[in-house]
């Protein structure tokens, strides 16, 4: 029997070493260690041995079993490692193949600049207000110190409506509405849609977007206006800028200014860009808002949103904003 055991061990070890994969190894395991495996059967024949021989032979067979199991384990690990190596090697993965497309939407660039400006001005204590786009003549003109005879009321600039109202020609009506509603002191911005009866081309639109700003308090001065404008422009443009204030005429402010920014986008151009009209709120406008001009002073400004966006992104045709063309809109997907 020991010879028999030796030959079994030899052939088992040979079979185990020769097994190329997990399946072959399983076959080896069952043919030697399974219920009808050679070693199992040999152990059953223990009974035919003498009592003295049994313990020694039994130990031999058990040792052989343990050795074979260890060998099988070792082989299994090796085979798995080989299989894994092969699998890793055989991958059809292409690092350049793109993933499934996730549809990503976009906010309109005017919405984006509006949200951005609101954040900047909220930081300075201004709150966001709105007013109707279809407006009373009163708020659009009279309350803003634009009398009936003023050229700004001409039909060539204003869209008049069949019901006697008009499409607001600026966001400035919100100044008086906000004064009436909130009183003073007041810090408010009002972005929104405005209308002027103008022929459309690459740089002109009959529908445009403005942001009105208004600050009213005790003793507000031009020096304060310059400070606030410089501060907000630094925020909007992301860098320190040179500004200059020069005379400009708007009936609802006195004095009125044009604010120019030097090289607003840091391209190195030695150029002043006219960016926003502003001024000290006219006493008649304060009165229309229910405030006493002796007690309160303030400044107001207006910012053209399309213009800001056009300069920022290098957009050359203002008609793109209302064109609704995805090929334009899709470009503004960055957050």
């Amino acid at each position: 029997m020991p010879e028999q055991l030796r030959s079994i061990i030899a052939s088992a070890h040979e079979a185990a070493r020769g097994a190329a994969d997990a399946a072959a190894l399983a076959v080896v395991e069952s043919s030697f260690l399974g219920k009808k495996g050679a070693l199992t059967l040999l152990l059953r024949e223990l009974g035919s041995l003498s009592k003295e021989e049994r313990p020694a032979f039994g130990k031999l067979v058990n040792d052989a079993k343990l050795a074979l199991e260890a060998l099988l384990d070792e082989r299994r690990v090796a085979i798995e490692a080989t299989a894994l190596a092969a699998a890793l090697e055989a991958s059809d993965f292409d690092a350049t193949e793109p993933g499934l497309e996730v549809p990503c939407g976009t906010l309109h660039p005017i919405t984006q600049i509006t949200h951005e400006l609101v954040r900047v001005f909220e930081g300075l204590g201004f709150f966001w207000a709105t007013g109707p786009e279809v407006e009373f003549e009163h708020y659009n003109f009279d309350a803003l110190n634009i009398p009936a005879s003023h050229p700004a009321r001409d039909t060539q600039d204003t869209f008049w409506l069949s019901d006697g109202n008009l499409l607001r020609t600026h966001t400035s009506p919100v100044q008086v509405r906000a004064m009436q509603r909130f009183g003073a002191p007041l810090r408010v911005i009002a972005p929104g849609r405005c209308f002027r009866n103008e022929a459309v081309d690459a740089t002109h639109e009959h529908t445009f977007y403005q942001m009105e700003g208004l600050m009213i308090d005790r003793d507000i001065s031009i020096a304060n206006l310059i400070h606030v404008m410089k501060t907000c422009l630094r925020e909007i443009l992301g860098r320190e800028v040179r500004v200059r204030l020069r005379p400009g005429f708007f009936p609802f402010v006195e004095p009125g200014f044009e604010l120019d920014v030097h090289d607003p986008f840091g391209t190195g151009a030695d150029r002043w860009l006219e960016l926003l009209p502003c001024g000290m709120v006219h006493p008649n406008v304060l009165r229309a808002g229910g405030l006493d001009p002796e007690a309160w002073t303030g400044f107001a400004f207006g910012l053209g949103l399309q213009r800001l966006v056009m300069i920022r992104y290098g957009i050359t045709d203002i008609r793109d904003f209302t064109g609704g063309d995805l090929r334009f809109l899709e470009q503004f997907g960055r957050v």
Partner: protein
Amino acid sequence: MLLSLRWLARYVDLADIEATRLADDLTMTTAEVEGIETSGAALRDIVVGFVVECGKHPDADKLSLTKIDDGSGELLQVVCGAPNVAQGQKIAFCRVGVAVPIDGKKPKKGKIRGYESVGMICSSRELGLSDEHEGILVLDTDKAPGTPLTDVLPLSDTLIEIDNKSVTHRPDLWGHYGFARELAAMYRRPLRDALEGLKVALPTSGETVPVDVSGARGACARYCALVVQDVVVGPSPAWMQQLLVSVGARPRNNIVDLTNWLQFDLGQPTHAFDLGRLHGPRIDVRYAEPGSTMRTLDGEQRELGAFDLVICDAQGPVALAGIMGGEGSMVDERTTSVLLESANFDAVTVRRTSMRLGLRSDSSARFEKSLDPALAEVTAKKFIAMLAEVAPGARATGPLHDPTAWRYDEKHVHLRSPRVSALLGVPIDEASARGFLEPLGFSLREKGYESFDVAVPSWRATKDIAIEEDLVEEVGRCFRYDSIPPQAPRAEVQALVRDPELVLLEKLRMVCAYDLGMHEVYNYSFLDDALCARLGLEGEDYVEVTNAIASHLRRVRRDVLPSLLGSLADNMQRHDEVALFEVGMGYRPHRDIEGAMGEERQGQRLPFEVHQLVAVRARRSAAPPYARLRGDYEALLARLGIAVHEARLPTEAEARALPWMHPRRTALFLTKAGATLGYVGDLHPKTARALELDYSSRAGSVGGAAALCLDLRVALAAAHTDLRYEPVPKFPSQPVDLAFLVEEAVPVADLARLIVDANAKFVRRHKLFEVYRGPGLPAGKKSLNFRVELGSDKRTLNTEDEERYLDRVRVLCKERGFELRG
């Protein structure tokens, strides 16, 4: 408006100041400069030529064959067509390859009627100096041939272009004299009088023409009339023509040129009538009779209305007051006597007529600004003073006649110096305030502590200086705003008043773009007739624009969706799948069916404004997009914490108001309060077809288009954005699948209710995961397959609990007539 530095030099010495600095200083203190140009630049390469020989062209009667010495040492043969060319003349010569100033064309070496011609002899017109084109310009000079023309003629000038819009509030700045006054004040230099060095020869009595302004009812503050005899009409002096050309005017004849020159000089328009052609002669300034007509000197027949101010002679209108003269009385070569009008007309009246007739002139542009009536008299005097040079022999035969007897009623404004410092934000002492204001013509008289009585000069009193702030502006701009150091305002800390609608809207836009993957579109508020026609929106009640940009854009949109459908159709021409959204206002005339009213003010009412979020999806292939868009809607409502109280088909009336939606495949959502949140559904087949979005009705195709609308005010009222935390369940959920076999007509909501009714305590969540129709089911039936999660806060549920729940479901199914499958 162009300012000539040569012209300004008549009144103030600025020769030592560079034009660029002048322009900068003007921009920073007075008016926006748009650019600086140098006239005469085009003339730099034109030279003096000498006509050495001049004979007839052998093959052309009207041409001459000349030999020109251009200083190059070589005689050039030049063919010339001018009748006045002659041997011995000095002429302006344009060499081959040099641009002719008027059109920039360069003469080439070539043959004219068989004879070589090298260069060109120029006329005044070709040089851009005047309109004279009858012959060549003959130079009166002893300069040698080859000398640049600019050394011979006083042609070089620097012109500063002023943006007219920046001086609409400054009637005093519509002539050179006004700018000279500004610049003299700015640089603290003496300003010469407008009449300095001129002799005004006005008789104190003599010939006058009767003038009656009573019919003008206050619209003619002043009318100075002057009779001039012995007029010989001819060209005006060269210097005057050159100045006129340099500021962009066309010289005509001496009388007209003088009136034009005065207009650019002092800013006061005047008009010269041919006195011989005035009937009466007399002048009535009055409003026109409605329906009367006159022919203006541009040859147009003008129909007049009751608000048009006209100048009439004994027979009728001879001029549109302040706008344009009439053809019948215009000055021409035959004129020998002139009636000069130097008047002041009301700004609003002039503007109204000029707008109505679409007739704007240099004159109307000035009267519209409210000119100073004092200027009328100064200008008339200057006219007479300059006549001696411009029309030798002509003379005034009577006094300056002004029936209005206008006198300047001096305007006074109270100025407190602390107020100046407070508004500017920089300390300004009284001496500096005085130093800025007095050179501009204001006179200051101390009146009480730290305050002044300021007398306003007549040229600033008509319009722009009326209140203290106006004077603060004068001081501020002279001090220069860019010298004011910025200073942070002092203000109380205030909590922001946040408008909840705006806060919500900002978030919803982000949900649409970043959660739901849609692109935001901005459409016009105007609804295009063509789109209306495609959508069948003809008979609706709209707010309309009375002066629309184009006749097809007169409607203001009632709803935002139709325009977005237009954007969808456009984009689907280029894409296979599109998802768009838009936020905007719709306007309903106040007599709208919903009974909602717009804001009211003094009997006037705004249209009712609806604030809508709308979205559309279309696909050319794959499943129709309704289910996806409905999912979008539910996601939006979930973000808002809005539970839809009722979802139903629109009633007939509701469907009529949404003609672009499918009347039977649109779900209308209502809140618990009964308000309509909005709708989502398929497009009406007619709309889909009109917009070419009807993919599923085409052979072998699927896909389609769907739309949704959310009323933001209703949504805001129904929103529950505050939420309360619920503990995460301690005991696991038990999933149960239920499949109900029901008639097609049974709504999902009925089964959803049944699922909850069966045990409201244990049903944690339920979800419809499939609607099955087709093989294996009886016709007209569908299978609604739900997954229900059962669970309890107190213990883990066991199979008995599940069995009890299923029993209860079976009982309810029996009661309600549904069949539970499997």
